[in-house]
């Protein structure tokens, strides 16, 4: 081998090594399409409109067969009462399944706290449900692939696959997961997947008399919910966790966690 030949061959080898393996991978059009699907479910909560009636919680429990009297629920409503001394009082008796009917704040174990009307500065209701995060931490921690995200962005639990280890319940920063008392597996809000996949709205959206809850498709620029999310001042819960929640709130206050 002369010097010219050696240099030629070296160039070929170096050039070959410089090609990243990714460049040799064939592009699958199906995969590309899935990366930008036509549908991404998104939820909008208007906290100004919520009156704390709890009809959403009732409808959710019946629709999704969550034992009615058990103290677990896929969605719930929180009441925030801010008093003149700067304190924030938060309660959600039984997830507000019977609404808020008393001015007394439920502090747990059957005890209540009385707050005088003249001390109240602000008082409002905040409905909560699964945020169907873009980066769901509950899915990452599942050791068996029982919980997963669908192409349209909803996080589901495979009841046959779940081993009930509870990692996902601990992993959710929003506390939306719980053990199903009868099936003994992890349970969570799934935006009423059986309803939205039939063109219906979720049970809680349909039950709300005041339009405080709405569901839409984030990929459709003409969707009224998407329009609000894109143009108005909306907030998400616990942004700092990087979970990219897809439940947006109108009128969210700093007291809401």
């Amino acid at each position, binding site marked *: 081998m002369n010097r010219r030949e050696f240099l030629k061959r070296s160039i070929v080898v170096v050039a070959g090594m410089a090609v990243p393996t990714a460049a040799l991978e064939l592009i699958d059009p199906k995969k590309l399409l*899935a990366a930008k*699907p036509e549908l991404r479910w998104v939820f909008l909560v208007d*906290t*100004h*409109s*919520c*009156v*704390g*009636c*709890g*009809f959403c919680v*009732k*409808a959710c429990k*019946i*629709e*999704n*067969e969550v034992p009615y009297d058990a103290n677990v629920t896929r969605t719930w409503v929180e009441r925030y009462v801010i008093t003149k001394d700067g304190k924030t009082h938060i309660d959600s008796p039984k997830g507000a399944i*019977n*609404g*808020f*009917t*008393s*001015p007394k704040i439920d502090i747990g174990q059957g005890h209540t706290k009385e707050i005088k*009307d003249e001390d*109240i*500065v*602000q*008082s*409002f*209701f905040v409905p909560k449900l699964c945020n169907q995060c873009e*980066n*769901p931490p509950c*899915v*990452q921690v599942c050791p068996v*692939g*029982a*919980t*997963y*995200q*669908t*192409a349209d962005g909803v996080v*589901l639990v*495979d*009841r*046959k*696959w779940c081993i009930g280890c509870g990692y996902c319940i601990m992993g959710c920063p929003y506390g939306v997961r719980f053990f199903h008392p009868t099936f003994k597996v992890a349970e969570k809000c*799934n935006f009423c*997947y*059986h*309803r939205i*996949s*039939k063109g*219906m*709205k979720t*049970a809680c959206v*349909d*039950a709300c*008399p*005041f339009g*405080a809850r709405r569901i839409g498709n984030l990929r459709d620029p003409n969707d009224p919910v998407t329009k609000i999310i894109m143009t108005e001042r909306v907030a998400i819960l616990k942004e700092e966790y990087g979970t990219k929640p897809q439940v947006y709130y109108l009128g969210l206050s700093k007291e809401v966690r």
Partner: protein
Amino acid sequence: MKNHVWRPLFVAIGLVLLILVVRAFMVPDDFGVWERGYMYGWHRKGNEEDWKKVTVKYKTKAYCKECHEDKVESIGRSPHGVVPCENCHGPALNHPEDPPTLTIDHSRELCIRCHAKLLTPSSGRSKIRGIDPATHNPGAECSLCHDPHHPNLEALKRHE
């Protein structure tokens, strides 16, 4: 090397093969990495269909309207027109076949979900007329005096 050193290795290889064979039978064909990639999309695809098969219980006002059009229309014009039928009448399920009649919730507890007076200056609740359930005819069913379909008391009196 002697046989007693190799033997455990064969046992180990045998175990691994056994696990692989069992795995091939136990893991369903549709279990794998789907649209959202390995981190979020590793699951049994068939489960998505399982979830879609859950029965719809709340059929919405549109379903009620198929038979009770006059009722839905007239109630729709009253202040309670915003309240979905099934919130008080219960989920329609397969009504009228099953159940033939719905169980209506007439309780005070239902009405005071919205109409118990609470001081909520920063919520829509403050715009709803409220009573103190402890002093406003305690124990009486609201529908004794108020028509839930036409709740306006002034209008009710005109009809008398």
